[in-house]
């Protein structure tokens, strides 16, 4: 074999080697591409899954705001509060109707002073019933679990007081309309004897809740619930002029001051909490 032959041989070998190398490389690229693609795909999938999980967690983590919490609480406590308040109204009307002999048309037979007395009594009892829901957690042994919850006692109390307050205002409005339209009571007087006692009871009740332990408060509350109707009847007997007042500027200022004090008490109760039950 001459030099040309050797060169040709080498070229052929080189070509064959190139082909072999190319084939080999191609094969490797094919397999490696697939592996790489699989790897990339897997990494991509994992990342997608992670992102999806995060998004799901984030969506799930979008905590319902206080309004939505309020809406959910309505099912558990709001309905109960409003039903109790309505039952108090219905019961009061029935009782007064029986006592006055007028049945459901009780306002017609009542004098303005009697209407003022009835309105005062109803508004105080309404305030007490409304505020007593704040003690339910302690009565039923739920207070510890509620204290350590996200909304804590203050959030739950705020919800309860909002339901109570809105229900109470509606009922007071109903009683006002009934007293003015159905009875002989002037509007200002009805407003005075609904609003003033209600605000007094609310301020006093919130004050007690801030400083007394639930056990002491429960006993005191029961006592007050019994004492109030007796006290009002006695007041009517010994000082009837108390129920013949007219709504003046002074009363308006008093009611405004009481409303402010009540709001401050409410805010402090939510901020500072209330005394917890005594030690084991």
């Amino acid at each position, binding site marked *: 074999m001459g030099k040309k032959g050797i060169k040709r041989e080498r070229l052929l070998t080189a070509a064959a080697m190139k082909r072999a190398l190319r084939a080999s490389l191609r094969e490797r690229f094919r397999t490696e591409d697939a592996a790489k693609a699989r790897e990339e795909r897997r990494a991509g999938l994992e990342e997608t899954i992670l992102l999806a999980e995060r998004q799901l967690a984030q969506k*799930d983590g979008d*905590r319902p705001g206080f309004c939505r919490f309020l809406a959910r609480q309505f099912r*558990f406590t709001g309905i109960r509060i409003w039903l109790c308040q309505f039952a108090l109204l219905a019961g009061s009307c029935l009782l007064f109707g029986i006592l006055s002999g007028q049945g459901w048309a009780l306002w017609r037979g009542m004098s303005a002073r009697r209407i003022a007395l009835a309105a005062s009594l109803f508004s105080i009892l309404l305030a007490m019933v409304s505020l007593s829901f704040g003690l339910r957690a302690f009565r*039923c042994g*739920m207070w*510890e679990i509620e*204290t350590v919850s*996200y909304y804590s006692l203050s*959030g739950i109390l705020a919800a309860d007081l909002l339901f109570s307050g809105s229900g109470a205002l509606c009922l007071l409005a109903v009683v006002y309309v009934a007293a003015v339209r159905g009875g002989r009571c002037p509007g200002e007087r009805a407003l005075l004897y609904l609003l003033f006692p209600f605000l007094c009871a609310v301020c006093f009740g919130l004050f007690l809740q801030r400083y007394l332990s639930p056990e002491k408060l429960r006993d005191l509350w029961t006592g007050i619930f019994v004492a109030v109707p007796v006290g009002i009847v006695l007041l009517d007997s010994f000082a009837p002029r108390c129920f013949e007042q007219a709504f003046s500027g002074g009363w308006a200022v008093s009611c405004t001051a009481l409303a402010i004090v009540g709001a401050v008490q409410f805010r402090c109760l939510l901020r500072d909490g209330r005394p917890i039950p005594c*030690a084991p």
Partner: protein
Amino acid sequence: MELRIENVSKNFKEKKAVDGVSLRITAGIWGLLGANGSGKTTLMRIVAGVMEPAQGQVLYDGIPIRTLGRSYRDIFGYLPQEFGFYPEFTVKDYLEYAAAIKGLSARQTKRRVEKLLESLTLTEVYKKKIVRLSGGMKRRVGIAQALLNDPQVLVLDEPTSGLDPGERIRLRNLLSGFAQERIVLISTHIVSDIEYISTRNALMKQGKIAASGTTEELVAPMEGKVYTCLVPAEEVRYYEKKLRIVNLRNEEGGQVSVRYLAEEPGIEGSKEAVPRLEDLYLWMFPADMSYDGKGEQREGSGK
């Protein structure tokens, strides 16, 4: 993740319920053992934020829990020793109410409640009123509410009270799985409930931490203080007065196997036994080795 209790004290009138307690609690299951009145529940309440300590503070990852406020409550689950429920609640209502006050969305609530009902075998009683359930089932409902928000810190005060053995084992397994990378603090009288699952334990006595460590570290001092022996049945009464007996088991042939605690063997032929955490508990709280009306000795029940 770390919960640090720093020099916490709490008084109730003249009594010091918790006296200068300091603990560093990391991920895993921590057992808090102690007799009635040793301060366990007060300490649990302080860790939960239900009660403020008179002295000291509790920190989560270096931040006081009082400062964290909602952020702490968000990752916290708590089962009180005595808990109640609104009488009109069914199990469904109770868990949904708990989810609402824990700030869970409706979708989260549904998912979590389904999972927990299955784990705690409450599916069949889901729509029953809680007042109608047995004590053990009520307890499981309480545990379910504690786990609702998938807490990072879980505090359970006497979680197995009222549960039958099968339920206790299931709960134990559930907590073991749950406690990976979470803090679980369990207070109990039933030593066996935590002996095999706890990472570390702390024993409380008169408001102070008397000992803390892993189970092995705690029982190490009890080596050489636990013995077993076979005695004739008629001699048991004699030895009950003489020794601190933790267990009696009737054997064949009128013999009784006695397990007792003592510095030195008190009965001839006694063999040293491998100490358990319960032995340490009864060594430290001998008053818990109580007697019933028939004069038979019960194993330490903590009551």
